[in-house]
């Protein structure tokens, strides 16, 4: 096993639905998918973004494309047309991609 930044093996892009921030993660190589699925849990992502996610983090698996779809509930404070925070829906995922994961050699 070796340790890599998620950024080296995956991409994450943000989006929004009302007050929720969406952060799907796409793993490029199917050989890495199980490792990412085991290590990048909803709980780990919740801990990473704790102060920004009042409603918690939900995760859906999208195995046909080696994807994990994270929903960060409440991260956009009721939506872009009323939030006081900056529109960070496309930038917050930068920190997800900085996570370290162990992948098979």
């Amino acid at each position, binding site marked *: 096993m070796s340790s890599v930044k998620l*950024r*080296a093996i995956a*991409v994450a*892009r943000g*989006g*929004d*639905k*009302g007050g*929720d921030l*969406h952060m*799907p993660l*796409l793993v*490029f190589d199917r050989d890495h998918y199980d490792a990412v699925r085991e290590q990048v849990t909803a709980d780990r992502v919740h801990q*990473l*973004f*704790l*102060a*920004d*996610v009042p409603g918690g983090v*939900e995760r*859906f*698996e*999208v*195995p*046909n*494309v*080696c*994807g994990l*779809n994270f*929903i960060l*509930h409440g*991260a956009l404070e*009721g*939506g*872009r*047309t*009323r939030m*006081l*925070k*900056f529109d*960070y829906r*496309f*930038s*917050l995922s*930068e*920190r997800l991609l900085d996570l370290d994961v162990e992948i098979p050699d």
Partner: protein
Amino acid sequence: MTNESIRIGSGSGARSDRLDAAVDLVDRGDVHYMCFDAMSEAGAAAQYLKKMEDPNLGYDLNLRERFQLVLGPALERNVKLLGNFGAANPLGGARVVADVARQLTGRRVRVASVEGDDVIEYVLANRDLTIMGQHDQTIDSLEGTIIAANAYIGAEPMAEALAMDADVVVAGRVSDASLYLAPMLHEFGWSLDDWDRLGRGITVGHLLECGSVSTGGMWAEPGYREVPRMAQMGMPLAVVQSDGTADVSKTPDSGGVVNRFTLSAHLMHEINDPKRYLNPDVVADFTKVHIEDAGEDHASVFWNSAEGPAGTRRPDTLKVLVGIDEGYLVDVWLLCSGYKAVEKARMCEEIIRERLEHNDKVTPLDDRFDYIGLTSGLGDSAPMPETLPGEVMLRYAARVRTHAEALTIARLSEYLIIIGPLGMGERRQNIRKSIGIYPTLVPREVCRLNVEMVEVN
């Protein structure tokens, strides 16, 4: 009418998308249909406000300029144009398109508008509707005034408009992916309860609806992924077969990139449960689709029937976005530079806090401070950087009930440079409406959809 295959392109992926991208796709893409998503949740709020100011407005403000550019070339090549650019006022939008058509060409042009997604009367009469995702909270419990309520509607009325020989279909709050399903319904004659086919069509539509986001936008990463010619980014284009399978590429001779990764990333864009993507036309199952590379800047999108249908029965309810006027958002920005810039910004924060505490004419409903250059784009949960920058923008934002309160706060930025610490500089202020957008569900029958046709020349 049943055809073997059709070519559908994306004309815009957002309200503020480039205007020339659609013209390039008409010129070089050999498309039969082009669909425009021009209405985000935030865009909808802006259009509701426009319509309140002037009932003739409320459609996408780029509409006239967009059609002045694209309508001529589209008519010449017989490309049908569909979009949700009618926003809060589809009939008004159709009139603008008809007006452009009258000036542009001598040929006959048929412009359809799809009305009926406005359900504000129903919502006002049923304030006990609950907000989606917040089961205990009703619309009635929200602070503020209801200014709009529009339902996400499906492809059926747009397909009907195409059957009436429309050249342009101007709709309002239709679901993004349904824009793309409409030509498939019309051309392939799919039954409205063929959930597998509809699920496939919605999947393909979803892959196209955000324009260049599936063809190389939001993709380049220094040191990891290069995207060629981003300034000439192409738009997605699909050759869709009558069984729903598709070859997805982009505007010929354009920048950007299309492959299984760009499309797979977009498959997950702004969805919740991938097995149940709730759409007015079908509940699509995005876990059934296969996406594979098919040559340079081409990807193949297909299904294996043995793995089950790509969709199931549509919901009995429609999702409605309720817009609530909650007052004003006011922003004050102040550039702090030089020696101990961050510390100076903190001094300004203290001054703002104290000034507001002693001002009984201003009571923010909620507020916050940001230090732009430290953690503003990375969330409140981000760690502080180890070395502090030599300049930082302090930003104070508040929600207030009245415009007078907003003005009082906006003035802060002007005098802070005089009474604050040494080394302040550029300051800005901004006041805008605070519109809450709350989703709820209404019975499907509440929407009485209606297609109107205007013919010019």
